């Protein structure tokens, strides 16, 4: 079942707030010196007494994780307090090594920010309640009759970004997630990979009759592992709640899991079993004193953010909204584009930026996809792409030749100029006199085709073009051949 925006009845308003968790790309874990580079490691190899929750151990705050969180908060226009603290969140579960999670309760690292999403040209502001820092749990691997624990993940820095219930449709929720992910990736604090679980999203959703002030009973939706599933799950859940209300049934406050394969949400836990986390200040960690000078230092170190980049591409390079969006969403591709532009001659850099964008979005993106190559391992360097554009610009090669050259450069890593040299590709015949001579010759020796064309058989032209191209061994530009040929055919007709 696919529920789209338009299916959802307009007499109900949907209210959505998101809680996003992101692992941070720090070198070491949140409270110990274990490496976070365990993605491909054997279970329980990146552990120590601290992250295993052994008796007697104590946490030590990872300053890099605090910096990452403050940078994120600044990018989300949050306020950073002068003082913050950690708290213990108590609940028993085998994936929680200490029986409590070190998190932040009443004085988080930041609060009161916002994020702008773009609704077909309309800017909408989504409030950010808070951005705080905590630690990830271990990973449980369930088998039949038993479960195994991989403690590698335990203690990984985890940042939580809580939004206000400001979103009014599943689409807005997806756009929010996409914008947020962009920002995290731009900051370099998160890999942004939802499918791998390094970026996770839980949603609170409720519906209410349009015009009603009071919020409806909300449910919490978990297990949404992609942008698409965020939108699908929330659309399903909104419809489910509306249908319940329409049939006069109550909505129960509960946690529901999204089942991707079935396209439905199912009840996981009801509110009656709701946890009391018994938060209290973490006595093993002194309060964090955050100096305004450090915050300003971090603010000054913020990289260009997606919205700024998008606007710059459109303003300075005249790119279309579509192209600017694509080059912004995929930061690595955008970076590539900028490197190509930077490698172009300064005088006509801006003018040729669109050619660079086309090359990046069409040829480079296509080749990367076709060869399943990550852009970081791309042999076609930005300099090579710029070189190709130079050759085209100087009429040294034809567009058709460029397609072949870019393919070869992508595979071999050679500069396009070198490939042109090695293959002995001659410059296109730009001497019009020479081209006219060949055309006249072709018309003369293919008089039937020529008269057919003159008689109105347009198809005959193609054969003549082919003959000219053959005579010039592909070094003539197809466009100019065609134009000259028509001109000559008409001339010789008279």
């Amino acid at each position, binding site marked *: 079942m696919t529920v789209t925006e338009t299916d959802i009845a307009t007499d109900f308003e949907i209210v959505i707030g998101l809680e996003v968790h992101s692992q941070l790309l720090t070198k070491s874990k949140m409270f110990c010196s274990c490496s976070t580079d365990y993605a491909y490691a054997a279970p329980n190899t990146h552990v120590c*007494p601290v992250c*295993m*929750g*052994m*008796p*007697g*151990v*104590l*946490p*030590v*705050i990872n300053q890099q994780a605090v910096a990452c969180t403050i940078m994120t908060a600044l990018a989300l226009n949050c306020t950073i307090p002068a003082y913050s603290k950690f708290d*213990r969140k*108590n609940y*028993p579960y*085998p994936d929680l*090594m*200490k*029986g*409590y999670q070190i998190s932040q309760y009443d004085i988080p690292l930041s609060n009161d920010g916002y994020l702008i999403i773009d609704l077909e040209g309309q800017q909408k502001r989504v409030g950010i309640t808070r951005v705080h820092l905590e630690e990830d749990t271990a990973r449980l691997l369930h088998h039949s*009759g038993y*479960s195994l*624990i991989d403690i590698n993940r335990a203690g990984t820095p985890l940042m939580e970004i809580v939004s206000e219930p400001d979103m009014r449709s599943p689409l807005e929720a997806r756009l929010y997630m996409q914008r947020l992910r962009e920002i995290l990736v731009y900051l370099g604090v998160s890999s942004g990979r939802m499918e791998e679980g390094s970026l996770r999203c839980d949603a609170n959703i409720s519906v209410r009759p349009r015009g009603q002030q009071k919020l409806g009973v909300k449910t919490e939706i978990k297990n949404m592992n992609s942008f698409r599933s965020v939108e699908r799950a929330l659309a399903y859940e909104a419809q489910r709640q509306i249908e319940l209300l329409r049939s006069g049934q109550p909505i129960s406050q509960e946690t529901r899991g999204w089942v991707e394969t079935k396209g439905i949400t199912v009840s996981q836990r009801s509110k009656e079993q709701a946890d*009391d986390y*018994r*938060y*209290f200040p973490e*006595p*093993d*960690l*002194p309060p964090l004193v955050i100096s305004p000078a450090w915050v300003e230092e971090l603010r000054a170190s913020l990289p260009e953010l997606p919205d700024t980049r998008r606007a710059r591409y459109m303003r300075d390079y005249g790119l279309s909204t579509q192209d600017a969006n694509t080059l912004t969403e995929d930061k690595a591709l955008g970076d590539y584009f900028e490197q190509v532009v930077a490698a172009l001659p300064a005088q006509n850099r801006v003018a040729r930026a669109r050619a660079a964008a086309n090359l990046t979005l069409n040829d480079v993106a296509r080749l990367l996809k076709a060869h399943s190559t990550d852009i970081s391992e791309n042999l076609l360097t930005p300099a090579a792409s710029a070189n190709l554009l130079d050759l085209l610009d100087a009429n040294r090669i034809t567009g058709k030749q460029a397609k072949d050259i870019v393919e070869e450069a992508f595979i071999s890593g050679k500069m396009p100029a070198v490939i042109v040299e090695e293959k002995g590709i001659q410059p296109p015949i730009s001497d019009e006199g020479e081209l006219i001579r060949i055309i006249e010759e072709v018309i003369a020796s293919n008089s039937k085709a020529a008269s057919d064309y003159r008689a109105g058989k347009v198809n005959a032209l193609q054969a003549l073009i082919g003959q000219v191209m053959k005579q010039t061994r592909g070094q003539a530009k197809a466009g100019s051949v065609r134009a000259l040929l028509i001109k000559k055919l008409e001339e010789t007709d008279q």
Partner: protein
Amino acid sequence: MTELYKLSIQEAGAMLRARQISSVELTRAHLDRIRAVDDKVKAFTLVTDDLAMRQAHEADIHFANGNTVTALTGIPLAIKDVICTKGITTTCGSNMLKDFRPPFDATVMQRLNAAGAVMLGKTNMDEFAMGSSTEHSAFFTTQNPWDLERAPGGSSGGSAAAVAAGMAMGALGSDTGGSIRQPAALCNVVGLKTTYGRVSRYGLVAFASSLDQIGPFARSARDAALILQAIAGPDARDSTSSPQGVPDYGANLNGDIKGLRIGVPEEYWVDGTQPGVEKAVRADIEKLREMGAEVGEVSLPHTKYGVPVYYIIAPAEASANLARYDGVKYGYSYRDTNDMWEALEKTRQYGFGQEVKRRIMLGTYALSSGYYDAYYKQAEKVRSLITEDFTRAFEKFDVLVSPASPSVAFKLGEISDPYEMYLQDVFTIPANLAGTCGISIPGGFSHGLPVGLQLLGNFFAEDTILRVADAFERVTDYHTRWPEL
């Protein structure tokens, strides 16, 4: 010559450095003493004979080679079984950790090892340091060397009894609400609770994290200073350890307390203080006055809230600290079920003793939604008031004096009401809540049983209370008396 086990650390150290005795001899003397009397006292949960002899031998090599040595090189010490020792069982007096061997050394153990000290073994304690009699050990009860029918106090009862009986020259304990000072008082030894942050807690199995501190036991103030010197100081692995520099604790032990301002808190003479205890401590205060100290009355008005505040904050922190014992990763594990939650519940049901479970429940309750503000939050506010009491008192006085415990050693099994047992710590708890330092030293006897004199100092004023303790020892002989065993 006196038996080697009767030497002080200072004396033995001098003899070791002069090569008059060897550490092997000294250590063997203590192991012999343990064999002779520990059947009666039961201070040790584990005697590490082989390790001790190996460390003693290494110390002797250092002496023989003229290597750099410390005041503790070759000195045999006992360690409370709540301090993690690499590869050596650290039971915390609990069935939960009966076979637990930590894969790491506590910071204090690293420092003692670096100083060349010899570890004789691990000492008995109330389970997870919760208790004031050592009767809450899951394994056995430790007897007071002064009267085997009486309790040594707790929770560091094993360490206090071991030092009192000559089974160790000194020991480490931990003090959360009086767990060093009260057993020191009941066993006639010196017990120092350090300022919060003075000694690293890394590797101290947590009871109540904002209150716990490690400190030394010894038979003299100077010996306690020597141990403190080795273990004090900042530690990057404990974020609550203080960056404050460590003074030379022996430097000012000159016997001079003339002009020192000593305050006597009027709230520290509660109903229920035994007359014999009060009498001895009043006499001690007179002695201090005679020695030239300026003695005056002082009020710590929030003292009476100390015990109730403590019994909210300590169990609250404990309820979280002890949550990690779930039978999954280490320690006792109930396995006779396929249900995860049943395994967790039974592990804790059988792994913990009654007092531990009582405090976990107390703490869980105090932190529960709807009760947090009334209990935990309120307790934290009163804790600030208690701290302010001390801050104000230390503006006028250098040291405060009081009994360390309202009673002398009580009979084993005599106190069965938990609340009555909690009152054992009425004089010691406030310093833990404030985070200041305190020491109990031998202060006399009542009906043949030791009375402890408590000296309370300001933050990081260990040097001051040690100076008073040392000066007091110079004019009294209580600390030189030995129990008959």
